[in-house]
């Protein structure tokens, strides 16, 4: 990282300041990273979010190891049973074990949500950087595309796309990501616009760095904080999107499980008193979304400290 921009310049007086600055900034960024981590860990809500999210990962991915259920074949003979020792959270209208189904549904939801966050953030990062670096015409064309796409509420487009495609884990991931990248692209562009006028970018350009190098070495690391915070919120939003689509009957069809479709099934029994078909799935959605939102807010505060220090 340090000093590879100056071939053969070692030891000469003229480059000493650059080396000193580079060394200093290296030290400073390490201590800043530490400060960021400390601020994040001191934030009780952020820690609570981490605990909730970690708990759900254990529940969804390790839970089935200890709690075996059949989530493929239906069995109407044991439909709508209240919680018992055999079925800790009862069964649904076709005889699936609710607790096992929560785990199965959570697994798919978490996988899709994480994949969406990674995919959408990457696209947004590239789009925003390219738009921010290229001036005038290309930039405004790229951002008008984002404006237009954001003018249509996401859920309408999601429903439309899901009604022409056959929803699967991949389709759902790509469809949600196809809309989710818009916001990060705006955030990234806004930051790039302010960053590119800063002296260190100018210095790098003067030193002969090309556009690609500036983007990869300087812009991407500097917008990374904003992007990371946004990615966390995107996981939460994607969980909501998956649940909403499944609730509306446009998610992955059964036997695939989802918290949203579990709730939609529970709606039919609102007045029958089958609470175990409604509350657990609903609470799972809220808890996971709250968890990721807490982490995101904690990250934002922590990175804020970093910005103040810089």
């Amino acid at each position, binding site marked *: 990282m340090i000093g590879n921009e100056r071939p053969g310049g070692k030891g000469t007086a003229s480059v000493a300041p650059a080396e000193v600055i580079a060394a200093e900034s290296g030290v400073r960024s390490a201590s800043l990273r530490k400060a960021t981590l400390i601020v994040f860990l001191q934030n009780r809500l952020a820690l609570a979010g981490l605990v909730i999210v970690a708990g759900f990962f254990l529940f969804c991915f390790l839970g089935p190891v200890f709690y075996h259920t059949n989530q493929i074949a239906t069995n109407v003979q044991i439909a709508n049973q209240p919680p018992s020792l055999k079925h800790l959270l009862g069964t649904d209208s076709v005889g699936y074990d609710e607790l096992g189904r929560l785990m199965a549904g959570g697994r798919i939801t978490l996988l899709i949500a994480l994949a969406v966050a990674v995919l959408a953030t990457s696209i947004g990062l590239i789009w925003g950087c390219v738009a921010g670096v290229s001036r005038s015409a290309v930039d405004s064309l790229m951002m008008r595309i984002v404006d*237009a796409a954001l003018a249509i509420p996401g859920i309408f487009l999601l429903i439309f796309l899901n009604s022409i495609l056959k929803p699967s884990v991949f389709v759902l991931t790509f469809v949600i990501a196809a809309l989710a990248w818009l916001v990060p692209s705006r955030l990234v562009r806004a930051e790039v616009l302010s960053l590119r006028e800063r002296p260190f970018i100018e210095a790098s350009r003067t030193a002969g760095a090309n556009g690609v190098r500036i983007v990869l070495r300087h812009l991407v690391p500097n917008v990374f904080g904003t992007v990371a915070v946004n990615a966390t919120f995107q996981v939460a939003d994607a969980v909501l999107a998956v649940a909403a689509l499944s609730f509306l009957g446009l998610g992955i069809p059964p036997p695939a499980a989802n918290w949203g479709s579990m709730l939609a099934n529970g709606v039919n029994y609102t007045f029958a008193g089958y609470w175990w078909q409604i509350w657990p799935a609903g609470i799972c959605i809220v808890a996971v979304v709250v968890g990721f939102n807490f982490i995101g807010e904690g990250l934002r505060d922590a990175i804020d400290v970093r910005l103040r220090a810089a």
Partner: protein
Amino acid sequence: MTAYLIRRTLHALIVLFGVSLIVFVLLHLLPGGPARASLGVRANPSSIKAFNAEYGLNQPLPIQYVEWISQVIRGNLGFSYKLNQSVNSLLIENIPRTLVLTGSATLLAIGVAVPLGALQAVRRNSAADYVVTGFALIFYSMPSFFLGLVLIIVFSDVLPIFPPTGPTATAPLLTQLPNLVLPVATLTLITVALFSRYMRSSALENLAEDYVRTAKAKGASILRVLFRHVIPNALLPVITLVGLSVPGILGGALIVESLFNYPGMGLLFWNAAQTEDFPTMLGTILVVGLAVVLGSLLADIFYGVADPRVRHQ
């Protein structure tokens, strides 16, 4: 101001053009293209061919776009073969009911969120502030369908006060006010959660201003400072917020309408998705996009009127 208006309107027109392009692309993404969208999935090849020839669908895409958009601008959004009705008449029938739902929810949300956020800012970091912030975050993280379901359980099942379904399309809304309560309440709570966070931080910023100190020094009571000085100033960002919340509120309305069977644009759209009624879906998307663009344009214009600093940038 004129220059500002022109600039903003131009931008809105460009975005609208983009929205129309997106819808046009979606139309052509459909399996079988626009012909199948109109004639239905089981249309035979010869009728598709005839349809394509009649509507110029064998022309190059740019020409097709121009023909399509000139129809749209004249107010022809297509024909729903599933419902045997023009998309226009379907929308005209359903949009007013969606406006009642979203309009009353937005107004109620502003009415609750503005004083709530201001009080939170005054009592910053008190127990009350934490409780309200916590609830706002939970409501914010709560999918509208779950919140609506909770309200149905509490207010229709445990305490049977309100009916669990929305109004019907056959009678005027005014005669079915009890049926409006739960859908409006669901959408309001979600919107309050969104607004109060912004109101709190906006009020916090204003509380730190010099004019607040001056007002306090003159001996104005805290309530007077709040309602006379802080809230009017803190309301400025709320104008923008409401304008920018149009997509969120319309999206929320879609889910609320399908949960409560509330006969509005959202339910129309959802039913269209179930029956693969593509002309209705695309017509609705166009109208919703128009509403969003208008929302942000109007918000910017109002902001320009309310705050002269903006329009002189």
